[in-house]
């Protein structure tokens, strides 16, 4: 048969049994759409996490009190498990691979000011903190070393706090009462969005660490230390140096006794990406199962139609079709059916991706690779299950194919 008549014959045959064709294609449509959407959600989550980690700030190193294997063996009683400004100062004096360093002193509580009150976290930091996080101000200015020394009651609002307390007004110069202590607002941070670890970096207030220690947390302990290395390349040296300084400061002999944990951005990124990769894999395999189920559906329908089609094959053979004619016909039908099913599935996936990206907070990143893979797989499923029974029938004697029940 000529190519054109093969194609038209396949289209005719597909249209002749619309319901069967639709059911067959439906398995492919749903399977392909599910695989693409699921994997794209995973990819989207992964991209989101990576972006957020990148937005944490460059060369960021975080030093937490407590051992790294927190879930395992507990540290001996009496070991120092909180930091003081001595630790920060010591690092500042001794470290050569650290550019900026800031203590973080956390104080939660009610903030009153502007149009009402708001529950948020107040963080005491040093002026360098802005550089460590690579954050920017949208208005006003940040506090200086002078404010730290004088323990000024000044603060900088996160964009979310500003929105809630001063929705319409410029807050600069106003007073807010943090746990009843009045602080003067001198700046507002730019909006940053949700962070990778689920912390909202817009819902906070920054103030000089000395003021927070003095007026709010009422002690001498700081929660953790953030620092940035002189460059990305020098991260390992910076970490090694920090470890050495901290051990000396805390008089620790062996690494097992470490009462601090040093993490860098790469560690965080690795952990988070690993989690989302597992998520992608999980979603992908769930969807893959649906594609296989779709494939089994196709097989069912193909098997059901085999009787009818075996007779049809018998008729075609009896009037002079060769086995290859039959195979080409069935292959063409199967390919056209699965191609159109796959195509509709891809369109469906793009539609769902559009909805996810525009109407939900869950982004979907549709990668060309997954489109290709699921499309190819669905095609293979369709071809295999459509082709195999046809091949069997095409190799029969015409009369046996005609008699087939």
């Amino acid at each position: 048969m000529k190519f054109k008549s093969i194609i038209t014959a396949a289209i005719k045959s597909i249209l002749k049994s619309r319901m069967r064709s639709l059911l067959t294609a439906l398995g492919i449509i749903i399977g392909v759409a599910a695989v693409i959407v699921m994997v794209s959600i995973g990819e989207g989550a992964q991209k989101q996490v990576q972006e957020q980690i990148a937005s944490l700030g460059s060369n960021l190193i975080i030093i937490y009190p407590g051992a790294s294997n927190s879930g395992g063996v507990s540290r001996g009683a009496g070991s120092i498990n909180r930091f003081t400004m001595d630790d920060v100062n010591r690092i500042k004096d001794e470290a050569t691979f650290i550019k900026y360093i800031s203590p973080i002193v956390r104080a939660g509580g009610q903030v009153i000011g502007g149009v009402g009150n708001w529950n948020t976290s107040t963080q005491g930091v040093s002026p360098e903190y802005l550089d460590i996080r690579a954050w920017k101000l949208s208005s006003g200015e940040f506090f200086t070393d002078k404010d730290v020394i004088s323990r000024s009651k000044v603060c900088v609002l996160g964009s979310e706090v500003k929105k809630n307390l001063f929705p319409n007004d410029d807050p600069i110069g106003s007073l807010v009462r943090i746990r009843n202590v009045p602080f003067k607002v001198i700046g507002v941070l730019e909006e940053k969005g949700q962070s990778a670890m689920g912390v909202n970096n817009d819902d906070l207030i920054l103030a000089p660490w000395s003021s927070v220690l003095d007026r709010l947390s009422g002690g001498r302990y700081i929660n953790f230390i953030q620092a940035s290395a002189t460059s990305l390349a020098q991260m390992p040296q910076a970490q090694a140096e920090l470890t050495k300084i901290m051990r000396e400061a805390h008089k620790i002999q062996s690494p097992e006794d470490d009462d601090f944990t040093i993490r860098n951005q790469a560690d965080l990124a690795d952990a988070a990406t690993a989690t989302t990769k597992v998520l992608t894999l999980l979603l992908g395999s769930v969807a893959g199962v649906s594609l296989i189920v779709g494939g089994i559906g196709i097989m069912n329908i193909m098997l059901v139609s085999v009787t009818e089609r075996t007779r049809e094959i018998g008729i075609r053979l009896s009037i002079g079709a060769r086995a290859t004619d039959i195979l080409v016909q069935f292959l063409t039908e199967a390919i056209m059916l699965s191609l159109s099913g796959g195509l509709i599935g891809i369109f469906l996936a793009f539609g769902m991706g559009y909805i996810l990206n525009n109407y939900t907070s869950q982004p979907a990143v549709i990668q060309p690779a997954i489109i290709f893979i699921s499309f190819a797989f669905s095609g293979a499923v369709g071809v295999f299950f459509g082709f195999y029974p046809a091949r069997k029938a095409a190799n029969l004697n015409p009369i046996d194919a005609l008699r087939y029940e």
Partner: protein
Amino acid sequence: MSKIIIETRNLVKTYKVGDMEVNALKGINLKIFEGEFVAIMGASGSGKSTFMNVIGCLDQPTTGDYFLDNVLTSKLDKNQYAEIRNQKIGFVFQGFNLLSRTTALENVELPLMYDRHHRIKDPKKKAVEVLERVGLGDRMDHVPNQLSGGQQQRVAIARALVNEPSLILADEPTGNLDSKTSVEVFGLFQQLNKEGITIVLVTHERDYANFSKRIVELRDGKIIRDKEIEKPLTATEELEKLKTAEVNQEIS
């Protein structure tokens, strides 16, 4: 006489059903010459269909030789078999064996789709022609289940004719037709035979067998009688008789 078109030598066909063996053909020796019109007769189960399927190259004999146009068919491969079915033989089945949900015209066109030599330049025109010849010019776009049994069989005959075969094989072609239509169909076969096409058909009715030039009778897979008919009936004459009978009936 003219050349031999079909020759079987000791043709045997044995079906195996479980442990049982059914000997459908037990050594058939038959020669059919070009231009003959042969009717195969015999009781049900005597092996008529089995024989037709073998000489139609739809099935292979268990043992024995079948020469078609002096070619030993057992030496041919599957594709050559397909080519023979497509080019040399037009087969009309006991059942109609039309593609369902496919119009009469498309059914008739089908053999031309598988013609690798494209002997017929305009398949559609040819299909319309043969459909008109079997009297279905006004039913071309009907699908089989919109046609009567007789009409379906005529579509099947048109399909057998479309590739201009030199041999037409028909297994009880008039089994589902009323007597008038049956005679018309035999008229058609007689006309085709007059044009030089060899015809072998199976029929149960001696009346219809008398339209042929030779009757071969089978019993239990063997030929028990093979005789020429001196003066075959002419379908056109019989049709005239039928008409006058009808007219007479109406008058009285």
